[in-house]
């Protein structure tokens, strides 16, 4: 189990995850950010399941999520989620 927090320009992203090898097998995102629509956060968690925890794979998955859902997160970019996840993954190894 890995846990990390990352302070984005607006809000703190908190990540709890489990890895199977270098692949995400369980992930929970929380924090004081904004996301429209709110239901999308669960979809982001689903999107990240089974994704390898390297920067490129994570960024591609998060960007795919933004594109497909028309999600808006004021002052939080795909890179910020990736940074938070990488930190949590680093702590779980």
């Amino acid at each position: 189990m890995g846990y990390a927090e990352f302070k984005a320009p607006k809000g703190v992203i908190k990540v709890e995850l489990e890895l199977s090898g270098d692949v995400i097998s369980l992930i929970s995102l929380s924090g004081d950010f904004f996301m429209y629509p709110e239901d999308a956060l669960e979809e982001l968690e689903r999107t990240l399941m089974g994704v390898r925890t390297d920067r490129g794979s994570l960024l591609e998955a998060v960007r795919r999520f933004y594109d497909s859902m028309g999600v808006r997160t004021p002052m939080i970019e795909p890179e910020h989620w990736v940074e938070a996840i990488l930190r949590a993954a680093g702590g779980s190894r």
Partner: protein
Amino acid sequence: MNSSVVINITRKRENPPTEWRLLPLRVDDAFMSMAIDEALLKLNAEGKSPNTVRFWRWLPSTVSIGCFQSVEREVDLGVAKKYGVDVVRRITGGGAVFHDYNGELTYSVVCRQDDVPDDIIESYKLICGGLVEGFKRLGLRAEFKPVNDVQVDGKKISGSAQTRRWGSVLQHGTILIDPDVRLMFELLKVSPEKISDKFISSVYERVTTVARGLGQKPDFDEVAAAMRAGFERSLGVMLTQGELTSAEERLAAELKPKYASDEWQRKR
């Protein structure tokens, strides 16, 4: 008059309402207040409730957490229990807020999405503009601080959170009048060493209150009246006194148990 010109450009409805409803200042528990806000949002989206502004207080005092926050990570539930403070999850994002019955006034604005700018920060700016105007009427130099704050002298005096669902917008937020800052930081999980005199003074560098700005604590009614006039100006509408409809009261009563449930509180 300039502000109404700008608003007309950003509005998308052909004939936006020029008259919105103002509800009388209410005091409710957290679960009822959250239920009323959701009921107003849902019925507004269905065309059954008018655009509405309301002011309210929390009894007992409550910590509200953002819809994406983990209650265990953010709130010391033992301290909340000790002081009789309720804890509730909002349907809006953002952070944890201590709503002190004796020191905090909350507002809600509910309207059609077409009546505010599509851009999220611009819509915060429009609605928070009512607070900025209201603080000015109280004698405080306030300004909007994106994304969702209002500041006086560079210090936060109000924070807001917004959700958009079913075609309507709910924005609610806190107006800090004179909250108990030490209790706030006992309730909110910051590391224990931070709850020191040094930390408390650093909070005073970043956060201010109406009482501090004015050198005296105003009445809740006085603050609400100033904010009412502020919203009328920033939104370019007239606020007319009204009451909750029976449909709104019924839906709120239906929604209340969700907010009081353990399942909702521990959603994340």
